[in-house]
């Protein structure tokens, strides 16, 4: 038995030694398991980015509940290591607003980030005022959008909550794969996708006349703090459709909460962060900039993860700063209350993320 234990120990030691010998120049921390959307994105970006850096990049997966522990670990420990780059996604942005997390975007420097728009589709024979839609924390902006479009302006939060519950069948527990199937089968009447997935999964039905583009959230303009119409789907931004339907532009705390949550999800869809004062920051930004103008590298990324708008260097920081201006106490409270009462989510209000001058 002693021999067995000795051999087991030796075998384990050898394996661990092998695992530790390849010390990389850079480590990309991904807050999820291999195979997830952001893991795939990080892998392809790392492969391309390496070409413009002196050193190699190794992916380190730190998975955990709702992809929060990995980002927390970066915030609490890893950001102090100069070679560590954090990869975050839109879900982290939403969790930052409504869950107890340690990380705070204000504490980091942006290497670069990807900004995108989310588009919603609906079956032609469906009733826009009574949609069946997949639920979940990733769908909060769509819930707000539907509540605004269906219920109209000048409502109290309680009225929006009741109206949403009366009109929208909110179907919980669907993965993105299940959602697409349920949409194709007609069990769900509405769906939403990012631009690449929308073209793949929804546009065929639109072209066949079975569905139509319902609305989209618009593209965040970091310098102005506004959302502009998507040239690929002109005239279908929520703000435009709302005004056409109700005669006034959307406004008020409920609309501010919508703007807040959609911006944190879509405006930080994929982002690379390092600690403030990181000596490698400029080299990383420069490499990302060179990558972004190389057609071959960009084609490789587009092929795998779709075509998104890149904001590199200070543009990324500006985007982050713009997002933080949306975090006001009324908007955040409205978001949390709507999440809890209408969507059943166990969201928490965090006063400390509201800027002090608010």
């Amino acid at each position, binding site marked *: 038995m002693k021999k067995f234990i000795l051999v087991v120990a030796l075998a384990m030691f050898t394996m661990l030694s092998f695992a530790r010998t390849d010390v990389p120049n850079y480590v990309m921390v991904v807050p999820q398991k291999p195979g997830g959307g952001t893991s*795939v994105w990080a892998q392809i970006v790392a492969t391309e980015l390496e070409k413009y850096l002196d050193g190699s990049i190794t992916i380190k997966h730190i998975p955990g509940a709702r992809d929060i*522990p990995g980002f927390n670990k970066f915030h609490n420990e890893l950001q102090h290591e100069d070679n560590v780059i954090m990869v975050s996604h839109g879900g982290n942005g939403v969790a930052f607003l409504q869950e107890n997390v340690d990380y705070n975007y204000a504490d980091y420097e942006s290497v670069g980030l990807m900004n995108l728009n989310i588009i919603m589709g609906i079956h032609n024979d469906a009733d826009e005022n009574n949609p069946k839609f997949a639920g979940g924390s990733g769908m909060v902006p769509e819930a707000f959008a539907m509540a605004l479009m269906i219920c109209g302006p000048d409502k109290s939060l309680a009225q929006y909550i009741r109206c949403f519950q009366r009109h929208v069948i909110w179907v919980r527990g669907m993965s993105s794969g299940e959602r*697409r199937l349920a949409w194709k089968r007609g069990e769900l009447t509405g769906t939403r996708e990012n631009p690449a997935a929308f073209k793949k999964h929804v546009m065929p039905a639109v072209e066949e006349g079975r569905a139509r583009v319902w609305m989209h959230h618009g593209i965040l303009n970091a310098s102005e703090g506004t959302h502009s119409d998507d040239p690929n789907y002109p005239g279908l931004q929520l703000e435009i459709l709302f005004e056409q339907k109700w005669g006034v532009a959307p406004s008020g705390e409920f609309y501010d909460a919508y703007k807040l949550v959609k911006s944190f999800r879509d405006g930080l869809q994929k982002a690379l962060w390092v600690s403030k004062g990181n000596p490698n920051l400029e080299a990383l930004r420069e490499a990302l900039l060179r990558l972004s103008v190389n057609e071959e590298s960009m084609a490789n990324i587009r092929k795998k993860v779709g075509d998104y708008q890149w904001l590199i260097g200070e543009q990324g920081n500006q985007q982050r700063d713009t997002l933080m201006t949306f975090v006001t106490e009324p908007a955040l409270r409205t978001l949390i209350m709507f999440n809890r009462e209408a969507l*059943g989510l166990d969201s928490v209000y965090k006063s400390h993320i509201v800027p002090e001058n608010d």
Partner: protein
Amino acid sequence: MLTPASACCIKTLMNEIIALLGGTLYGLLIGIIPGAGATTGLVAIFSFIHLFGGDPYLGVIFCMAVVAASTTGDTYTGVLLGIPGANSAAATMVDGFPLALKGKATYAISAAVTTSTVNGLLWGSLVFFLLPWYTQLLMIFGVPELWAFMVLALATVGFVSSNLWIRSLIAIAIGIILGMIGTDPYTNSDRWTLGWGYLGDGIQLIPMVAGLFAIPELIAGLKNRAETAPRNNKDHWKQTIDGMKATWEHKWLGLRGGFIGAFVGVLPGLGGAIGDWMAYGAAVAANPKEEFGNGNIKGVIGPEGSNNAQKATSMIPTVLFGIPGASFAAVIMALFMYLDFELGTVDLANDEKFFSSLTFGFMWATAIVGVMCLLLTQYIARIAYVPYKYYFPILVAIMIWVCMQYTGGWEDFAIFVFCSVLGLACKKYKFSRPALLIGFILAPRVEALTYQITALYDINTLITRPIFLVIMTATIGIFVWGAFRKNRINYS
């Protein structure tokens, strides 16, 4: 002169052949090692699955080759050592090992391999070549049908896979409780984590599979060293040809075994040894005047018809609906997820290369390993005689290594130990481990589908769906039959 396009094609083909041969040899080796088998072999792949990151389709080919080859390979330990490489050779062992003790090991292996290969190719063709066509079922099966299918899976694994159905139900309940630890899909907050943040993402599948199946079998392998058949290379070629002749002579027995295995494999969650034992039982029942258990070749051919067929058809619910057809399929699901293939989705249903990789891996590996085993039995058999103490520490080390890949911290090790203790306890007290695993895997999906079915349907719409009604009727039938049947078979 090669054009760049044709050079690229040749390179791709060469890579595919390397993945195929690598998977076949690895699968054969892992099949021969006592107590290992497809599930353990697949779990160990996590230690090097990242090598396929550049071309995940090569990973699919490798994994399917492992499944096909290990199922054929485990016949060796069953026949030569009286120890099944995995439980898919347990039924073969009953008559195969006595044949080996009589000096007819090659005869038994030849018959087993030929039957296994023929049925693997037959049912593999029906499954893999037609799998893209079966994907149309995705559009027919809505939320209610999927929900009913999950409940059917739990019913079959609970009432059919073990003669101790109350213990099976308890095992399912434990599996469901463990499977529901993590994030509540309704509130999006931690559930049953006892304040331990690590559990917020749930208990991971790999330590659960390794703890439930690999570790108990590896430890059991240390004890099962009572008797081995002597090495006998005499009449090698004559015995090989006699074995093939026996397969032809009893072809209907082998094909019936294949049919039984295929039927069991397609039922969600069942898989495992049950099809082999049913095929063995059918062989015994069809020959009431003959003696079995003392070296009857029909007792080898019957169950060997079943195991490869079962592996093939188990992939139908696994690929189409993401519902594992057997324990090994649960690991396949996790491996494919790592390779960015989400089973049971529209994306995958339209991925022709994925289906061709499945087919290429399974079919060619079945054929190659069949030919190898027939031609090289006397050499391959030597692997089975290597003392188990050399395999044991390596396999245990790999299991620990693989299970610590989630976060790399002590928490991974703690969960692995917990799952191993659970697996050992289940094995000792005869609580169905497949039932526990299926409960664990299906719990989150049954819960999510229950939310979906209650949101989208009511009883008036459900009773208009014929497939839903048929599946629910079958489920109720299995409940009643399972609870009240008298002649129970022990598949454990």
